[in-house]
């Protein structure tokens, strides 16, 4: 394997290449497009959570000005369900029968000349229901339970024997609420058909998935479908699946034979595009008096929709985080009449880590040990159940350097012992061992006659910096100035890319770009193989290097020539090469594949009389493998941290327990941090490139969020002596 050397371009904190488009308003998000003759759609959603539609009357809606069509389950064609994907099954196809499985289910789509007309007409659709009693509560005894849904339950050693040896056992029930992804961009779809082929703009994190799914659902060849998403207004997981509204827009466009645009409303964003499901977790941790962990038992249950899949193995983190001989983790799901959950930034880890890292803190207090010390003491030097060395792990450095930067040594151990005037001050910390997730990816690289490069792959940049870091990477690998490289994405006609999700895209795509660029250099060498005029004649790939638009022999810059010269002499317009990456295999490498690691240090200030809580400082020390761009990677961690603060203190999707209606489905009611809620924060990157892949990145999109809730909870305990096990932490829990 050729590994990447650190160069001038990779790693540098360059401004985003797409910054000029974003700051001028020129970046085009899916709902910014419009087409001649475009019609507009609006949705009608169910107002019950379970039962049947007894009747649906569209007469008035159809008669309303500008209305072109109204499609309901009575008029919709039979649609296939979308295929299984790498992330599980597709959501159920819309309008296939009269059953209602959750509140807010789409029961009709209205298409009109203008958006105002469509919205108005949608309000004229009359539905009558036969309501059944909805199951909405995770503890509902009637709910069907899915055991071990992902086959990820683990067991090692003997937990009962472990607890029997323990001097200290802490045990607690932790609950986390439903959270709604709420990317700021209202998710939008524009679809238009030309005969049997179809073009779709969509707020997706995975254009190829949209293409494959629509091909299955509408029974048309994939080759006729083009999905475009050059810019997406965030996603945080909401754009990973092909949701019913996307399918309905495509269906409506076929029906009216015109381009149709649908922009979800904010309330619809709460019921149409997934959410982080609530969880209840029982965790029990045993330790010796000396602080050695001897047993961990972690049971999690999450909610899932009636006929759907979601990936939330919340207890799994307990299996991989500590060197503990006896560990048992179990996950279950309860099927409820709720809108389909889906991944939300750091799925499962965000919830599970809160329980685990709070419990570890409790153990530290119980045995009288510093919370930092106990984590170092039980450090998993190798993967705890694969018993393989990690492909990289600098979590120890995260703890030590983070503690240093934060000033952890100033902490006095006794709860309530640190004050600043009327404020109680608390320090808390949490560790994160994020899982590895990577899937195959492809990219194509070309160098043109003018010496510029064009590299592309059907990935998305949901704010992660993909455009920028891939431009940097390609520039480095081709020896070009960054201004001579264009990286493009967001088009399903480009080579296959997986989703922007699971913190896996940068790794998968980076290694595909690496492969494509290396092959491209080889293509150039092939062209001059027998070229007597070339100083590179018969050079092998590992005998050359690239700089300043030239390929030359290693150690002898004079022995080489430029891309431009080679192309010109051989009368070629351009040369191109494809590259692909496949996920490394632990068994082959003899290494456990590492995701990112992190240590989070938080200072909170609490006004004991008013119950006010302020997050005063956050230091995140992250081992993200190779960092391709320090500036954008730092933004990922800052953004993740804001998501963590939000999870800890703000967000809770409130479901009315009788009707299943989401009671706070607006930005006025659903709390999220605003500018004044978020402190300045410090981010440190430690560690080096991961050994498992050529590029050596580990993905930093999610590790920033995880651990923040636990670190805040632990800081609250340190400030107040109160252990809070239910998120979000709110004022009423803090009034002393």
């Amino acid at each position: 394997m050729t590994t990447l050397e650190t160069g001038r371009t990779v790693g540098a904190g360059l401004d985003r290449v797409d910054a000029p488009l974003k700051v001028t308003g020129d970046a085009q998000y899916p709902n910014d497009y419009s087409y001649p003759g475009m019609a507009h759609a609006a949705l009608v959603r169910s107002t019950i959570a379970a039962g049947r539609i007894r009747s649906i009357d569209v007469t008035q809606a159809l008669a309303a000005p500008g209305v072109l069509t109204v499609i309901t389950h009575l008029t919709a064609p039979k649609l296939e369900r979308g295929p299984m994907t790498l992330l599980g099954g597709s959501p159920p196809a819309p309008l296939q029968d009269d059953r209602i499985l959750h509140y807010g289910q789409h029961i009709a789509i209205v298409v009109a000349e203008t958006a105002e007309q469509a919205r108005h007409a949608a309000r004229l659709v009359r539905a009558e229901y036969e309501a059944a009693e909805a199951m909405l509560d995770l503890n509902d005894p009637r709910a069907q339970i899915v055991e071990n849904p992902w086959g990820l339950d683990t067991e090692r050693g003997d937990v009962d024997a472990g607890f029997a040896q323990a001097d200290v056992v802490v045990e607690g029930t932790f609950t986390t609420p439903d959270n709604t992804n709420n990317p700021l961009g209202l998710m939008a779809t524009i679809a238009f058909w030309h005969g049997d082929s179809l073009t779709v703009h969509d707020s997706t994190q995975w254009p190829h998935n949209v293409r494959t799914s629509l091909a299955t659902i509408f029974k048309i060849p994939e080759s006729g479908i083009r999905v475009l998403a050059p810019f997406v207004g965030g996603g945080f997981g909401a754009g990973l699946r092909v949701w019913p509204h996307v399918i309905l827009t495509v269906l409506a466009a076929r029906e009216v034979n015109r381009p149709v645009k649908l922009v979800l409303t904010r309330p619809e964003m709460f019921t149409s595009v997934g959410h982080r499901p609530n969880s209840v977790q029982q965790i029990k941790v045993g330790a010796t008096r000396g602080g050695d962990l001897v047993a961990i038992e972690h049971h999690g249950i999450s909610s899932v929709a009636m006929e759907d899949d979601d990936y939330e193995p919340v207890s799994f983190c307990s299996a991989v985080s500590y060197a503990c001989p006896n560990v048992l983790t179990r996950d279950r799901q309860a099927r409820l009449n709720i809108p389909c959950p889906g991944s939300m930034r750091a799925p499962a880890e965000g919830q599970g880590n809160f329980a685990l890292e709070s419990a570890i803190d409790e153990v530290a207090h119980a045995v009288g040990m510093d919370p930092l010390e106990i984590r170092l003491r039980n450090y998993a030097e190798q993967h705890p159940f694969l018993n393989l060395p990690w492909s990289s792990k600098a979590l120890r450095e995260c703890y030590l350097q983070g503690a240093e930067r934060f000033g952890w040594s100033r902490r006095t151990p006794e709860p309530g012992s640190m004050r600043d005037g009327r404020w109680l001050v608390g320090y808390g910390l949490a560790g994160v061992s994020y899982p590895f997730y990577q899937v195959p990816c492809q990219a194509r690289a070309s160098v043109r006659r003018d010496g510029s490069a064009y590299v592309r792959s059907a990935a998305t940049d949901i704010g992660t910096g993909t455009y920028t870091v891939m431009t940097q990477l390609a520039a480095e690998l081709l020896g070009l100035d960054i201004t001579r490289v264009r990286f493009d994405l967001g088009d399903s006609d480009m080579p296959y890319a997986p989703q922007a999700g699971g913190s896996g895209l940068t790794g998968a795509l980076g290694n595909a770009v690496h492969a494509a660029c290396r092959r491209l250099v080889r293509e150039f060498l092939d062209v001059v193989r027998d070229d007597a005029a070339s100083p590179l004649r018969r050079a092998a790939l590992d005998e050359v290097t690239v700089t300043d638009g030239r390929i030359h022999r290693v150690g002898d810059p004079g022995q080489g020539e430029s891309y431009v010269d080679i192309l010109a002499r051989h009368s070629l317009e351009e040369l191109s090469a494809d590259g692909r990456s496949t996920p490394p295999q632990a068994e082959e490498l003899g290494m456990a594949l590492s995701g990112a690691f992190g240590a989070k240090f938080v200072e909170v200030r609490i006004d004991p009389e008013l119950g006010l809580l302020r997050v005063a400082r956050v230091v995140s020390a992250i081992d993200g493998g190779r960092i391709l761009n320090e500036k954008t990677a730092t933004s990922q961690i800052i953004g993740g941290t804001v998501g963590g603060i939000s999870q800890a203190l703000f967000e809770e999707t409130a479901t009315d327990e009788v009707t299943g209606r989401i009671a706070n489905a607006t930005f006025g009611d659903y709390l999220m941090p605003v500018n004044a809620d978020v402190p300045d924060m410090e981010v440190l990157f430690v560690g080096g490139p991961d050994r498992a892949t050529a590029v050596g990145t580990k993905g930093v999109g999610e590790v920033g969020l995880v651990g923040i809730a636990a670190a805040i909870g632990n800081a609250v305990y340190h400030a107040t002596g109160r252990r809070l096990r239910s998120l979000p932490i709110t004022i009423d829990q803090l009034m002393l």
Partner: protein
Amino acid sequence: MKHVETEARPAGQAPPEAPHVDVTLNVNGTLHRLRLDARVTLLDALRDHLGLTGAKKGCDQGACGACTVMVDGRRVVSCLALAAQYEGREITTVESLSVDGELHPMQAAFARHDAFQCGYCTPGQIMSAVCLIAEGRANSEEDIREFMSGNICRCGAYPNIRAAIREVTGEG
């Protein structure tokens, strides 16, 4: 149980055509004569009728700031404004900030400080920041935090947004 979501109107009677209005909007120094459905918001007029898609729609309920534009020197969430009421007002959008490809100092500062990720809130943040300075309200870190709190950034770029504004006000 019966659930009906509808507007009161005798069955069978077709809903009337919505009233239209003639309005002349002064946007970025150019006058545009428009005939609009009276329900069209200023945001939709800009985006759907004038092709100025810089201002974004994040909530359509006045709660996120993505649609912020400047009207007579003050910030307005254009999703809560009816276009018909804005005749004769001076409307400025993000599209007018850069001149001949030269970024406005606030735009350049946002780029340098990586004050965005997905970029969807960015036009609103930038308009808000520019107005903040014009309003004389960006005098301290506290002020910036407080008066920028009407603009949600779900990607969480807040510290970087503050750094960009501080740089432009000369305190960075």
